[in-house]
């Protein structure tokens, strides 16, 4: 359980509509510093949309998100500053194909945070060493396995020293034998005290690493509780049905 209780993200009445399709129908929750939150639910429940609203890759059509007290939805020019403090890891890795691993990691620290190139590279090498990939610094994304790419994507986000890390199904596009190496890095990150919001279908990871689990269904958070609450004492029939399908 997190020791500090300060709120890092506050989500209020979040709504998202794509044309006629209502994907989020009023999501309310609070994320505290140091919490590791895993969002679970069926496809189309709105998990990814919820996550992508947090750093406004999707602009919500209603409600608000307060990141350390500042509105993300009404951020204006300040949005880029807010995004610097929210790292994001994608299902498809999205490493910059035109840049080497080292340049992938140092690009934003150098051009956004105006870090010295040498200092940024030194830090990138230390981060790469933490995920065991320092020998890949000069490689290009196309030369790496999915698991390697995703570990580097995590390092790229960490190089900005974010206050919170958002993970959008980080292991869904990986071959089964590579899932473990990525989850290990994430678990290490959680142990170091990083605040994390993870959309995932990895129930084992959720149970072991999460402090809190959000079960989303049909655009709302249907249940919110500790892993024991969610996995051992599901309240709703819908969650029981979902767990019955994914936990066999």
């Amino acid at each position, binding site marked *: 359980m997190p020791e500090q209780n300060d709120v890092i993200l506050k989500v209020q009445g979040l709504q998202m509509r794509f044309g006629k399709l209502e994907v989020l129908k009023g999501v309310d929750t609070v994320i505290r510093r140091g919490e590791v939150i895993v969002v679970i639910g069926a496809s189309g429940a709105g998990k990814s949309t919820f996550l992508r609203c947090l750093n406004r890759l999707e602009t919500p059509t209603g409600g608000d998100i307060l990141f350390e007290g500042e509105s993300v939805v009404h951020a204006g020019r300040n949005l880029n500053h807010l995004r610097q403090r929210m790292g994001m890891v994608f299902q498809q890795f*999205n490493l*910059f194909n035109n840049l080497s691993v080292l340049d992938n990691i140092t*690009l934003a620290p150098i051009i956004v945070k105006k870090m010295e190139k040498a200092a940024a590279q030194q830090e990138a090498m230390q981060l790469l060493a933490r995920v065991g990939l320092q020998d890949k610094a000069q490689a290009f994304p196309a030369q790496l396995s999915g698991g390697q790419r995703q570990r580097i994507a995590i390092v790229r*986000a960490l190089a900005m020293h974010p206050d919170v890390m958002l993970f959008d199904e980080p292991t869904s596009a990986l071959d089964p034998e590579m899932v473990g190496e990525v989850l290990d890095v994430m678990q290490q990150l959680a142990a170091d005290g990083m605040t994390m919001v993870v959309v995932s279908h990895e129930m084992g990871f959720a149970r072991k690493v999460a402090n809190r689990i959000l079960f989303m269904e049909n655009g709302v958070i249907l249940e919110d509780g500790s892993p024991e609450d969610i996995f051992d004492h599901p309240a709703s029939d819908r969650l029981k049905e979902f767990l019955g399908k994914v936990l066999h």
Partner: protein
Amino acid sequence: MELNFSFMTKYWPLFVRGAGTTLVLSVFTVLIGLIVGVVLALMRLGKFKPLSFLSAAYTEFIRGTPLMVQIFFIFYALPQMGFKIPNITGLGFDFPRFASGILAMGLNSAAYVGEIVRAGIQAVDKGQTEAARSLGMTAWQTMRRVVLPQAFKNILPALGNEFVTVIKESSIVMVIGITELMFNTSQVYSSSYRYFESLIVCALVYFVMTFTTSRLLAVMERRMKRDA
């Protein structure tokens, strides 16, 4: 009916100089086309609707009117309205004439290159932009550092084809008296009355330029694929 190439001993320098002018003309045309084309593509893809409309209108208008009209417009019509390209003396050639030709060709090429660039940008995976923006990069930083380099790589073959097209189409600027290959060829056949032979030589010189260019591009393309 017999072929006689003896005029070549006297006139060959005209073909060489003409080819040189054609190449210089084409390089500048493609440069202007690329720069203006990138601007047109960014305007077209941007969120600001009036600029997007302006870019689309420009592209449609340029592609829907003859290049010859555009060349005459810039060379004859604009000076009439007071828009004169200032002369630069001491260059050894008629600068306003040459510049008018390059400008007209470049602005024409830009309409086509703009569409190539737009397609190239749109072919870059959306995830690349999302990743850059999620790191706090601005839209422009994302475009310059991540999207455009990848788009450029995608469109290099199409840009090469545009260069080949421009080499051939530049023959049209003979109508405003630029002494490029086609113009010089016309000088040769009207002095020597050797139409058939002059045009054969002219065609061969064009072909050598376009074929060499496309072979060079093929090599470059293979090399880039290997490095990727």
